[in-house]
Structure formats: structure tokens, C-alpha cells
């Protein structure tokens, strides 16, 4: 993926973010900015603090200290305003298994206050994009994992949020489905959406404009994949990761 | 075997990790016993009544005083006319109204007959019939007092009576075995069925099934912790029943505990059977609650006497494990029965146990294929 050509204004700014659970420091003084329209990758081993950070940024969790703004709103006092302007998709693909595709779309669209008249036509567009129109009356529980994940993403971005947070969205899916899923992400970015994604697949890190690598609650590296590879003199992200985290 | 031991220990930890569950497990039997022992009773004391005395002479006031002097009644209000009766009942305050006719005393002295009417709120017929008979007994006593003064005969046959096993009429002899049946059902059958159904619902059962543990070991591993807990619950109930409520253990203690253990096994296999036919926790819960808890309370003869139920329900109750357990336990505890007197109850329970095991094994196999 090409480097981001022009730096736009930041949509997420994080200064000195700390999150403690009792004596355990999950996020230790994080600092970074995410710019409009970029794909920002968050890498790290399990337990490095990625999910904690994404939960704070999406308003699910309150940080212990630090100055954090998402879409121009403060995470301490304006979480509800943040929630209107973001999309969120977790590793669990939180669709209702006992509802159909159509019913899931209608429910989430309603919750995000998409005007009623627009819901059905926009749903058809979204389903056409992922090629699932003829399955719209199928129950989620009957669908293969790769489809569920595509649908979860369509639903997370259905209300055209400025920023979408993806928490390990591709875990447990086969390589082809993962590739397809990233195509879906690129299309969304072209519309101007910012994507914040956590992953532990190093090949996916290559798709990001910039990545930050976390280890034991700290950010240990942050730059574009190419710059990082050059700086650490490695060929691929996997070697990079091993080199940094060790 | 070591693997199995590790699995049981894991399950046990899992169970006691949530303090709420542990609290409920031990609080339920204790609180239920306390409720039945100190709060709930089918006898009536201090019922609120209203009096409508048209006569207000010495004899009528004597009667009113005698009624209010008993423990059964408290005067809520005195009425002055018939029309007030309905409102007294409708506001729910008063359970009985005693109406004494005009010139009550003069009628007794002159005609040998004064009239009173007992009006009860029969929207609760249990209370109504009890209050009615209490009041009647007091009035009959009063009549005896009057007639003794006037040397007139009133009865020629005296009734003497003796209550067996339970001279002081405490209901503890009934609710302690009943609580035991209910709690063992709850812990063994309801908890086991929901906890196995949970593994199925969350998909973790498959992980267990592909592990080196054999299916039988998995089921046993889930069941053993509940077996231990319910055994403790049983002992707690027997101890509280004996030392707090004075329920005797006239038969052999070993027979009592043996009967309880058989029932625990029976309830556990019932729980396993329910879990094999339920896909989700909610379904397991519904089947357990509707299919087991309610019948345990209602069709085992624990609160409501069986012989007054319609024949169909009596027939249904024959298939209820707690019914046989209660019979056996009551006979051992209260009547000092030995194994010779209760072997047929035990045999029926054992037969049910085998049946539940057979069904569970069959269902379990079908699911694995």
C-alpha cells in the first residue's frame, strides 16, 4: 500500500494515555495521532494492550489519565458524541445469530438513526457490494464465518462513520476471506473513512498506511511499514516484529 | 484417572468462583427452613375482625369479650349497620364480621335461643373455613358456660383426642423433609442441567468431547461437584431440622442418609437427562422449573395433601421422584421405619434412576453420531 501522500488533519489525538487495572498497567503512556483517511494499524502480541486502547478510543472504557480526543470529542465527557461518529467491529462479529441479515441491518441502522426511507435501498447497495443480496433472509447462524465478518463490517460502516475501529476483525478466517475483507476496507477508505485496526497478522500490517507496534503496554515503534522495515533492515513485517518485540 | 481428577477439580473451582452461586446454594436451604419455621404457617392468629352488635347487652358483650380474649382475633372496627360490612371486606382489612342479633340476651333467657351470624371473607376459603370453625368453637364454649350456670344439658358425648408423632402440631415435621426434597432437586437437577446446557450453548462441549476425556468422565466431572454440595446441603437441613425445629430422627441415621444419597443420584441423572434434550440454558431452565420444581412443590404431597387432588393428578404424582423420597424420609424420621418398611419406595427410586441413566446414555450417543 502506498504511503499516505498528504498529511490531513488528525481525527484521533492521544497524549500520555494511561489505563491501569488495579496494579496492572495495560496502557503505559501512549502518544500518537491518526489522520483523516488513513489506515492505522495497531500491532502487538496478545495481551500487549491493543484491545484496551481500542476500547478507550471507542468509548467503551474510560482511561486512567491522559488527554484523548476522537473525532474532535473528549473521551471523558463526550463519549456519546463520539459514538455517533464511529463504527466498531470486534473479533466476536457481534451480529444477532437468531436474526436474518436484513433484520440485523434494520436494527443497527435504526439504532444509528439512519433515516427510515434510506435503510432498505442502502442495505441493498451494501449487500450487492459483498455479493450477498440473495441471502438477505437467511439467519446469521446459518452463514459461514467469512460472510459473517463481511456483514459485520458492512453494518459497522452502514451509518457512514468518520472513523471505524476494527478489533482483530480477521481472526479465525482463511487467507482468501481475509484478502477479500481487506478489499472491503480499501473501498471504505476511498470514501474518506479513517480505519483504525488491531491485528496480529503481520501480512495485514503491510496494508496499513502506518503501524504502531505495542509491547507490554507501550508503543515501541510507529511509522509506515516501509520506513520501519528500512530502519530495522528487514524484508518483511514478521521479521520486524520479532526484532522489535524481542 | 489423574486427568479425571484434574477435570473434577477444575469444575469445582469453576462452581465456587462465583460467590453469588455459593451464597445461594447454602442460603436457600437455611432461609427456606427459617421461613417455614418462623414465618409461614397454615394456622391463623390475630385475624382482624369487625363486630356488629345490635344487642349490646351483658350476654352479647360477654361473647364479644370471650372472642377477643382468644389469640385468634383482633378487633379492627365496630360497625353500626349492615351496609358497612361490604366496605369493611372490600378494603381488605377485615377477614370476618360477627353479627349479633337485636335482644340477643333476652332471647336466650326467654326463648332459650339467641342468634349470631359469622360472615367470613371466603375469597380465601382456607382462612374463611378456619376462622369460621375457630369462632364456632368459642361460641360453643360460651354456650357451655351459660348452660352450666342454668344447669341445662348441652352435650352428652365428650370428644377426647390425641395427636400422634407430633403432639404439638408443629408443621416442621412436614416442611423439613419437604425442603430437603426441594433443595436437592434444585441443586442436583436444575443446576446440573443448566450447567451442562451452558457448555453446549457456548460450544465448549465440543472442545471437551474431542479431549482425551471419555464422555462418561465429562458428565461425571460436571456432576460430582454438585453431588458434594447437595450432600452438604442435605446434612445442613437434617441438622437444622433436628436441633432448631426438633424434628426427630427415629429411624437409623445411616438409612436416612442412604435414602438421601439415592435421591441425590436420582436427581442428578434427571438433570443430566434434561441437559441431553435441551439445546440452550433457557430451555433447560424451563424444563427444570416447569417439569420438576413445580411438581416437587405441588405434586409430592409436601404442601398440599395428595389425596384431595383429582385422580389424574394423583396418577401424575406417581411418576414424581420426590413423592417416593418424601414418603421414605418421613417414615424413617418420624415413624422410625427400618429398611423393611421402606424398601419398596427405595426400589421405585432405584428403578427411576436406571431409567434416567438409560435415556441419558441413549440420547447422548445419538448426539455424538
Amino acid at each position, binding site marked *: 500500500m502506498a504511503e499516505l501522500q498528504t498529511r490531513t488533519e488528525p481525527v484521533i489525538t492521544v497524549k500520555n494515555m494511561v489505563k491501569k487495572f488495579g496494579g496492572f498497567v495495560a496502557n503505559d503512556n501512549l502518544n500518537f495521532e491518526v489522520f483523516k483517511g488513513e489506515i492505522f494499524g495497531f500491532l502487538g502480541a496478545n495481551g500487549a494492550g491493543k484491545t484496551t486502547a481500542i476500547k478507550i478510543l471507542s468509548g467503551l472504557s474510560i482511561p486512567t489519565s491522559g488527554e484523548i480526543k476522537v473525532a474532535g470529542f473528549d473521551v471523558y465527557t463526550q463519549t456519546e458524541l463520539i459514538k455517533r461518529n464511529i463504527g466498531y467491529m470486534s473479533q466476536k462479529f457481534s451480529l444477532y445469530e437468531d436474526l436474518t441479515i436484513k433484520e440485523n441491518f434494520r436494527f443497527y441502522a435504526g*439504532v444509528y438513526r439512519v433515516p*427510515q426511507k434510506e435503510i432498505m435501498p442502502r442495505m441493498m447497495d451494501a449487500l450487492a457490494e459483498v455479493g450477498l443480496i440473495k441471502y438477505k433472509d437467511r439467519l446469521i447462524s446459518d452463514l459461514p464465518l467469512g460472510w459473517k465478518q463481511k456483514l459485520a463490517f458492512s453494518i459497522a460502516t452502514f451509518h457512514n462513520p468518520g472513523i471505524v475501529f476494527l478489533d482483530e476483525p480477521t481472526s479465525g478466517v482463511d487467507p482468501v476471506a481475509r484478502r477479500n475483507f481487506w478489499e472491503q476496507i480499501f473501498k471504505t477508505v476511498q470514501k474518506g473513512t479513517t480505519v483504525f485496526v488491531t491485528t496480529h497478522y503481520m501480512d495485514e500490517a503491510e496494508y496499513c498506511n502506518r503501524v504502531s507496534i505495542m509491547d507490554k503496554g507501550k508503543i515501541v515503534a510507529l511509522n509506515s511499514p516501509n520506513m520501519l522495515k528500512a530502519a530495522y533492515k528487514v524484508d518483511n513485517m514478521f521479521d520486524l516484529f520479532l526484532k522489535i518485540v524481542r | 484417572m489423574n486427568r479425571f481428577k484434574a477435570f473434577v477439580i477444575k469444575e469445582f473451582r469453576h462452581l465456587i468462583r462465583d460467590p453469588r452461586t455459593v451464597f445461594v446454594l447454602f442460603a436457600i436451604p437455611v432461609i427456606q427452613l427459617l421461613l417455614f419455621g418462623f414465618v409461614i404457617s397454615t394456622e391463623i392468629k390475630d385475624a382482624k375482625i369487625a363486630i356488629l352488635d345490635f344487642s349490646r347487652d351483658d350476654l352479647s358483650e360477654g361473647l364479644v369479650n370471650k372472642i377477643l380474649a382468644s389469640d385468634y382475633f383482633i378487633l379492627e372496627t365496630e360497625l353500626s349497620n349492615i351496609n358497612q360490612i361490604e366496605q369493611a371486606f372490600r378494603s381488605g382489612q377485615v377477614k370476618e364480621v360477627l353479627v349479633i342479633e337485636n335482644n340477643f340476651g333476652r332471647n336466650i333467657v326467654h326463648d332459650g335461643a339467641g*342468634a349470631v351470624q359469622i360472615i367470613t371473607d371466603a375469597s*380465601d*376459603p382456607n382462612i374463611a373455613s378456619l376462622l369460621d370453625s375457630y369462632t364456632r368453637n368459642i361460641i360453643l364454649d360460651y354456650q357451655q358456660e351459660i348452660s352450666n350456670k342454668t344447669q341445662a344439658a348441652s352435650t352428652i358425648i365428650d370428644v377426647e383426642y*390425641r395427636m400422634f408423632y407430633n403432639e404439638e402440631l408443629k408443621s416442621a415435621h412436614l416442611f423439613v423433609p419437604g425442603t430437603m426434597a426441594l433443595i436437592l432437586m434444585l441443586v442436583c437437577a436444575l443446576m446440573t442441567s443448566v450447567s451442562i446446557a451452558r457448555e453446549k450453548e457456548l460450544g465448549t462441549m465440543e472442545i471437551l468431547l474431542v479431549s482425551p476425556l471419555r464422555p462418561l468422565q465429562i458428565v461425571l466431572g460436571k456432576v460430582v461437584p454438585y453431588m458434594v454440595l447437595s450432600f452438604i446441603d442435605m446434612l445442613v437441613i437434617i441438622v437444622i431440622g433436628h436441633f432448631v425445629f426438633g424434628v426427630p430422627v427415629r429411624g437409623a441415621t445411616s438409612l436416612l442418609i442412604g435414602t438421601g444419597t439415592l435421591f441425590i443420584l436420582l436427581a442428578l441423572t434427571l438433570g443430566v437427562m434434561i441437559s441431553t434434550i435441551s439445546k440452550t440454558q433457557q430451555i433447560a*431452565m424451563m424444563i427444570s422449573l416447569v417439569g420438576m420444581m413445580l411438581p416437587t412443590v405441588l405434586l409430592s404431597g409436601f404442601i398440599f395433601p395428595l389425596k384431595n387432588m383429582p385422580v389424574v393428578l394423583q396418577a401424575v404424582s406417581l411418576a414424581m421422584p420426590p413423592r417416593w423420597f418424601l414418603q421414605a424420609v418421613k417414615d424413617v424420621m418420624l415413624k422410625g421405619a427400618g429398611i423393611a418398611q421402606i424398601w419398596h419406595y427405595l426400589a421405585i427410586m432405584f428403578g427411576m434412576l436406571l431409567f434416567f441413566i438409560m435415556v441419558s446414555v441413549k440420547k447422548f450417543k445419538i448426539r455424538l453420531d
Partner: protein
Amino acid sequence: MRTIIYIIQKEFLQIFRDKFMGKAIFAIPIIQMVILVYAATFEIKHIDLLVVDRDGSSASTELINKFRGSTFFTVHKKQLTENEIKAVLDEGTVDLAMVIPQKFEASIHRDQNAKVQFLIDAVNGTAGELALAYCRATVMSYSKELLIEELGFTQGVVQAIKISSRYWFNPNMNYKIFMAPGILAILITVIAWFMTGMNLVKEKESGTIEQLNVSPIQKYQFILGKLIPFLIIGLFDLSFGLVLAKLLYNVPFVGSLSTLFLFTLIYLFAILGIGLFISTISNTQQQVLFVSFFFVMIFVLMSGLFTPVENMPRWGQVINWFNPLAYCSRVIRMVLLKGSNIHDIRFEMLIMFIYGIVTNTLAVWRYRKTS
């Protein structure tokens, strides 16, 4: 407002998609109204009486025939010793034994002071007491007959006080019209409480709650969206149960049904608040189940549905102030059987309203969108 409607629509879709739950909403009222109403009664229809007649006179035979003539009693006549009687009582085949002593007839005529003795298996206290009461009444009526017919007393002297009994609101002492409204109260309570309680926790277990927490749904919208579907189901089951009560038992609807529905609406609001609150403090359905079962059991037993609340100790009555089921069982019977109006049940309504405000506030407060 639109958001709430979307949540409600989703809840109904899920409830009726689950084949078991969809059926349970209809099946549970039917099972409860058909089986429980018949089972839950203290009414005594039948007494097995063992008779040991040691006199064998015409007077004793006549007394026994009195018992034979009543539909309540089945007389089992045997000659047994005291210990043998105890053994028969042990077996549990009879409820009580009547012993007519020797010289029974002679005493009647000589000093007008004869005795009969009853031996009772009192393992079931209430049943023993009622059985005894029936027996005494039978003996008394025989005694009265003797006074009048054999010994020539006039009736006036015998019965100095004439007692008549009237049973208001249920003159035939029909136990079913008493039990049916009580069972209805349990029905709507259990359905509303358990279904809401488990519903919210199910979203926690499946992870969908997180997806809702990152959405702009307001707390109050979420709680209302979860509350209203079960409020509707509760009211539906009340209507369904009332129809069954009318068809099966001809329960009288003396009071106004709109009063009953108004009260039930307020009552369900309180109950659903409890269910929601419990689910906000639990993580698994199993926890909700046990905590709920614990309270529902206490509430049902103390509510006065099956046993009188009058003679509870003071502290029991104080606990009952916080027992919503005690208010509900009382009001349902008051309105249906006695025709109590809104004015008569105003305190119960007010208390349930406050109860509902408190429990729902707790639920909204405890429901955390953020951690």
C-alpha cells in the same frame, strides 16, 4: 423514540424466532392454570377413618353410621389393640382412628357423659386439625340428636346460641376461584422476571452487548426497549390467563378489568425493574437464574398465595412490605372476587409505583456502557 421502537421490534423477532420460547409464552399459562389450580388446595374432600368399636352396642353402631353417611368419610372398621392402631397409622393408610370405649351406650343413659377417643396421624398438622374438626362436628350432631330424640330435651335448651355462617364473595367455598387468581399472579411474575433477567445477560454472553455499547443508544432507551416487550408479554399472559380462568373455573370478574390491568401494568413495571437490575449485576444466565430463583421462592412463599399472612411475626410482615408478590396476589383477588375499586387499592398501586421507580432507576444506574 424511534430507537426504542427498533429495539422492541428486534426483541420480539428474537423471542418468537426461538421456537421453544415462542411456545412457552402460550404453554406455561395453560399448564399452570390447568394443573396448579387443581393441585394447590388445602380443601379436604376425603378422610379415611379407622373405627374400633369396643362397645358393639346399638348406640355405637348408630354413631358409626353417622360417619358412613357422610361423603367425607370412608370407614374402615376393625377390632384392634392400641398398639395395632398405631401400626395402622404408621402405614399411612388411614388419616385417623376413632375408638368407641366399652359401656359407651350405658354411659349415655346412666350419667349422660359418654366418651369417644380420636387418634390422629398428625404428620400433616393442618390436615390433622381439619380432619378432627369434621369428626367433632359429626359426633356433636349425633349427640344433639340423642338429646332431643332419646332423652326428650327440647331444641331450645340444647342450642342456646344459634350459629349461622355465611361465606361472602365465594358462597359455595369454591377453592378454584380462590387459587386461579393466585396462580395468575405467580404466572405473570415468573414470566416477566425470568425472561427479562435472562434476556439482557444473553446479550452479554453472546457479546452483542458490546456492539450496542459503542452505539449512540441512550441508557434509558436501552432499558425501555428491553422492558416494553416483556411488559406486553406479561399483559398478554394476564389476558390469556384470565380467559382460561373464566372458561375453566368460571372465576367471577366482580371488579373492573381495567382496574386490574392498570394495577398489573404498574406491578410489571416494578417486577421488570428487578429482573433488569439482577441482569445488570450478573454475567451469566446461570447466575441470574439462581439469584432470581432465590428471591422468587421467598416472595412466593411469603406472599399469602398459599398460606395466610395474618399470623406472621412482626419481622416477617416487615419483609413482606418489600415483597411485590404479596401486593399483587392481594390486589388480584380483591379486584376479581370482591370488586375492589381503584380507591380500595390506592396504597398498593402507589407502593408498586414507587417500587418500580426505584428498581428501574437502579437498573439504569447499574447498566454501564463504559467500564
